[in-house]
């Protein structure tokens, strides 16, 4: 570790210029580099060490054991199966949805867009909760309307949950791609005599190929690393992310947990690299060209796509209605009287956990937004030597699954001298680091829009770099700052996978309480907790919007999704 930071220091030696400013930039970059190093690479290193070392010697024994234990080894196959099917289905569904929103003249585009984005602000297990109420072994639809013994637990439950969980993420990418590609090519093809299907298959789809690959890779990454939905609806169907949890938390097999973590890292990093490489390529294709007028779509096309959008939107709304309604029903599905009993949370954290989650989310928002803004400034504007390394470190967190990061934190920091262990601070640090990529990318996007001449003017007027940053850059980035803040706030309120390893007797988080309530067989209260979290996030967004008088709106934020 000492080695690496040394080389970092050497590479950032200032050549010339105003020494004090340079020094400040270097100091700050070193500090951020150190934070990322210590809270991201060090935990990862601890995992690698745990999985490869046996009694101080290099050994593949854990890997051998992994592949020799059929039940555990199956988790790899399960993960791929679930991730690949979810990836294909989600990408196709999202593509047609994006197509409808960008290439047709259907009505209600804004409403459709808002609805499909809803999963972004809710705890990521809400899909699984709703599916169990509707299609569980005693689900409303399966057991009571269809009277079948079939239930959704297992692979299909996970896949369907993941599809609805990933739809908004895939849609954002495809929406951006489809609205950026020049539609005049489609028209040209049409006037040359191609029919609608030919245009679609030979022109539209190929022109969106980068977006498709990028969306598919993102969905694959999200699905293979997701923990919440599989743990709730997987039943006996174990995937890599849940197997890490059961090995570590249930059975105390840290070496096996670490081994599975490394195995999970491989597909997740690969998907991330594909996405990263492709999105760089595809963005170079997007030009600022004028967007031609969209010709009114034909009647059948309009009806078809409107129907399609309504169908998808209805499914999403059904998920929310089921969960909210389920939180009020006395005894689902026996006693349909409505009551507030489930809101008397029979969990340790109870309402206090909501408060803890709330202020942790605020602190995460402030620290995360500040840190990513400063690193964005360094990478995009100050550009000291070695800033590329800082950039690389900053985008890495998106490649690391939450469960892996969580386990890494236990392995790395559970020592008496790390006084932050077992306090809320370790959770705050973890959430800031886990979501660093998006925060950083959105800061960069925003900083790119600030004209360099502004800073140059400030500098030539004798302003130091600190003054330039606080008086020029920061005020101009206020909107971006608020957006990153909101992003971090939302993530922090709903995140589960990493922090489930870090909650302790002293810190209870609301999103984790949902899992505990569900594990405890308290479905009603799990729904109630999810509902309260959504209400809090929505009202917070409302308040921020109101204060910012719509200046700090968030759609931009979603657009910058990796």
């Amino acid at each position, binding site marked *: 570790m000492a080695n690496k930071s040394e080389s970092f220091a050497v590479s950032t030696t200032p050549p010339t210029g105003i020494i004090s400013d340079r020094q400040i930039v270097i100091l700050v970059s070193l500090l951020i580099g150190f934070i990322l190093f210590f809270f991201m690479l060090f935990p990862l290193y601890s995992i690698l060490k745990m999985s490869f070392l046996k009694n101080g010697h290099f050994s593949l024994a854990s890997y051998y054991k992994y592949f020799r234990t059929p039940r555990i080894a199956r988790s790899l196959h399960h993960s791929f199966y679930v991730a690949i099917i979810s990836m294909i289905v989600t990408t196709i569904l999202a593509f047609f949805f994006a197509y409808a929103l960008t290439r047709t003249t259907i009505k209600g585009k804004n409403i459709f867009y808002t609805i499909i984005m809803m999963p972004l602000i809710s705890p990521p297990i809400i899909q699984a909760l709703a599916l169990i109420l509707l299609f569980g072994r005693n689900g409303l639809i399966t057991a009571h309307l269809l009277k079948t013994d079939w239930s959704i637990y297992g692979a299909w439950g996970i896949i369907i949950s993941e599809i609805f969980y990933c739809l908004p993420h895939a849609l954002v990418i495809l929406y951006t791609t489809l609205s950026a590609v020049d539609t005049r090519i489609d028209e040209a093809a049409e006037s040359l005599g191609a029919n609608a299907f030919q245009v679609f298959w030979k022109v539209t789809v190929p022109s969106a190929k980068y977006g498709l690959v990028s969306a598919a890779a993102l969905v694959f990454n999200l699905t293979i690393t997701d923990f919440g939905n599989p743990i709730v609806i997987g039943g006996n169907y174990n995937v890599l992310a849940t197997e890490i949890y*059961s090995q570590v938390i249930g059975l*105390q097999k840290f070496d096996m947990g670490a081994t599975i973590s490394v195995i999970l890292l491989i597909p997740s990093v690969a998907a991330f690299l594909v996405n990263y490489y492709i999105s760089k390529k595809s963005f170079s294709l997007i030009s600022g060209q004028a967007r031609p007028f969209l010709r009114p779509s034909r009647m059948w096309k309009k009806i078809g796509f409107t129907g399609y959008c309504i169908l998808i939107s209805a499914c999403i709304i059904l998920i929310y209605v089921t969960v909210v309604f389920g939180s009020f029903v006395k005894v689902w599905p026996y006693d349909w009287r409505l009551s507030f009993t489930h809101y008397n949370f*029979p969990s340790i954290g109870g309402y206090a956990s909501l408060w803890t989650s709330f202020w942790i989310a605020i*602190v995460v928002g*402030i620290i995360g937004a500040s840190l990513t803004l400063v690193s964005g400034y360094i990478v995009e504007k100050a550009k000291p030597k070695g800033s590329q390394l800082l950039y690389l470190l900053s985008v890495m967190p998106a490649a690391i699954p939450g469960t892996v990061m969580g386990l890494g934190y236990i392995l790395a920091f559970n020592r008496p001298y790390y006084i932050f262990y077992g306090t809320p601070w370790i959770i705050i640090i973890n959430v800031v680091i886990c979501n660093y990529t998006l925060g950083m990318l959105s800061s960069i996007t925003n900083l790119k829009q600030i004209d360099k001449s502004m800073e140059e003017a400030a500098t030539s007027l004798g302003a130091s770099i600190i003054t330039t940053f606080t008086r020029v850059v920061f005020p101009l980035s206020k909107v971006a700052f608020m957006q990153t803040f909101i992003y971090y706030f939302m993530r922090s309120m709903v995140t589960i996978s990493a922090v489930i390893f870090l909650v302790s007797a002293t810190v209870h988080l609301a999103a984790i309480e949902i899992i505990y309530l569900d594990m405890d067989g308290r479905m009603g209260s799990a729904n109630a907790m999810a509902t309260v979290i959504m209400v809090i996030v929505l009202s917070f967004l409302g308040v921020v919007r109101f204060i910012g008088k719509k200046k700090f709106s968030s759609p931009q934020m979603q657009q910058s999704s990796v």
Partner: protein
Amino acid sequence: MKRFFIIFIALILTLSIGIVPAFAKKKLVVYTSLETDEAIEYMKIAKKDLPDIDIKWIRLSTGELGARMLAERNNPQADCIWGWAVTNMEQFIPKGLLVPYKPKGLERIPARFKDPKGYWVAIDLYAAAFVINTKELAKRKLPMPHSWADLTKPVYKGLVIMPNPASSGTGYLQVSSILQMFGAKEGKEDGWEFLKKLDKNIGQYIKSGSKPAKLTAAGEYVIGCSFAFVYSQLKKRGFPVALQFPAEGAGYELEANALLKGAKHPKEAKRFLDWAISDNAMRAYSKFKLGVTLPGIPGPKDLPPLSSIKLYPMDFKWSAAHRDQILEKWQKLFLK
């Protein structure tokens, strides 16, 4: 701009106050495997009886609690364990994670409910029981099961749910009692053959010992292998459930308290452990538990009296000594 920054810093500072642990009160960290519902009620009384201690606690399943203690052995986060299966406790004494402590009033607890060296003292006893969803049973026109042997009948295929013994103390006591019944202590394999027959009817092995009952109540399964106290909770909440103790004899387990080695708040922990076997605490337990270890306190009204239940005479030392071996074999056979 400046004002913005000042507000900003002020906000961080205010919020930080929430993060800094409350110094005014003495802190205590307790880990427990007692069910969340009951533990919340007991804690209300504990907080009243020990008003100057800020008790922080977390509920973990029996296996998870052990896992966490091991994980934190270099840096213990908890001070004491409250209501944890004695079988697991016995395993942790040789590992050196516990220190003996004899709480006030220990002499009132009968000798079979405490460790002679003072490592642990039990507060209650809970027994394996079947929770049956009567509505689902009637709907499928199935007979009421009375014994483990009944549960292996083909009519219940896929309708029985059982806890995973690796993570659940209830699950382990069920498996261990079945093995002991079939003479595993004498080296016979019949118990495993029986478990294989039972496995054909099990719909799912689940992490916690109470969840089989809860899922059964919700109609997801018809018979949940669980324990008695969940039943009374579910009945009160209006679920259509019935209770049966296995006719072969119900396996049971003691839940006990202990002081952790390296506790950061030993003084508070000892006061809490004293409280945990006090009259007030015992009376609170007796509202939920099948039986408490302090003689003379009657059990809950909605459960049959302990004396009327046929308990299987469990050998905890054997259970503890063979736990790892049994779990490994069990997982190999039944976790697919």
